[in-house]
């Protein structure tokens, strides 16, 4: 735990226990989404499915990176992860991104993916709003994650034809915003 770092956040007026609960539930959402996206990705086959597979894979890997980036901050602030994986799963900030009943239904797949990303966008916006100007390090981390979640949402949303936004696939390595927290 980083004692002074926590004190600074408390003195800025943030309820650190509430913040920690949010960070842990978001970390749970990232790791469970990584798992559920694995099931979605392996089922993205055929002419339609293969077209989405690559962005689903990038989103999957980046969600795992988000989990990895969140964990040190949770412990810096004096928090911890649940001992049992089952408990961790059940406190996820977002519902399971479950495989649709018909895994060949590409539209249903995309709706699961975009809903998961939208839940994440709302969640990190909430953390950013809560920490802005008060907890600079958590804000920086949440903003970095938010930047990637917004891009994920855009990718899936555009496949659903909801409107243009001009995002392209990653060029080069994954997690362009969050990678600084992983080094």
């Amino acid at each position: 735990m980083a004692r002074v770092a926590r004190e600074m956040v408390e003195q800025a007026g943030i309820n650190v226990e509430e913040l920690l609960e949010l960070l842990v539930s978001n970390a749970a959402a990232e790791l469970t989404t990584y798992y559920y996206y694995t099931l979605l990705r392996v089922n993205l086959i055929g002419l339609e499915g293969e077209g989405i597979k690559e962005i689903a894979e990038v989103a999957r890997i980046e969600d795992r990176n988000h989990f990895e980036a969140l964990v040190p901050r949770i412990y810096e602030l004096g928090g911890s992860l649940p001992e049992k994986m089952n408990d961790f799963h059940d406190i996820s900030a977002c519902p399971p991104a479950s495989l649709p009943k018909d895994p060949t239904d590409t539209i249903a797949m995309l709706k699961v993916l975009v809903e998961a990303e939208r839940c994440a966008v709302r969640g990190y916006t909430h953390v950013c709003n809560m920490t802005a100007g008060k907890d600079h390090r958590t804000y920086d981390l949440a903003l970095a994650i938010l930047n990637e979640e917004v891009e994920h949402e855009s990718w899936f949303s555009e496949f659903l034809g909801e409107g243009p936004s001009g995002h392209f696939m990653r060029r080069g390595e994954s997690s362009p915003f969050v990678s600084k927290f992983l080094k």
Partner: protein
Amino acid sequence: MKEYTREELAQCTGKDGKPALIAAYGKVYDVSESYHWRGGRHHVLHRTGADLTAEFARAPHGAHLLERVPAVGTLQEG
């Protein structure tokens, strides 16, 4: 639809066999089955049994998400 007083709403937190209700913009919604309201809380900070109209102004989403849960009544003014 039933008209709820604030006192009645305050008792509907999902405990003691009562539904988990929230109010917003004059309507009362049942969030008992919503994933996002498990344990009577939403994103740690928001509680069931309350009028959340003011909190919606600061929420990272619009009131349109309320369409996903059943409206079960109205909230008595005052």
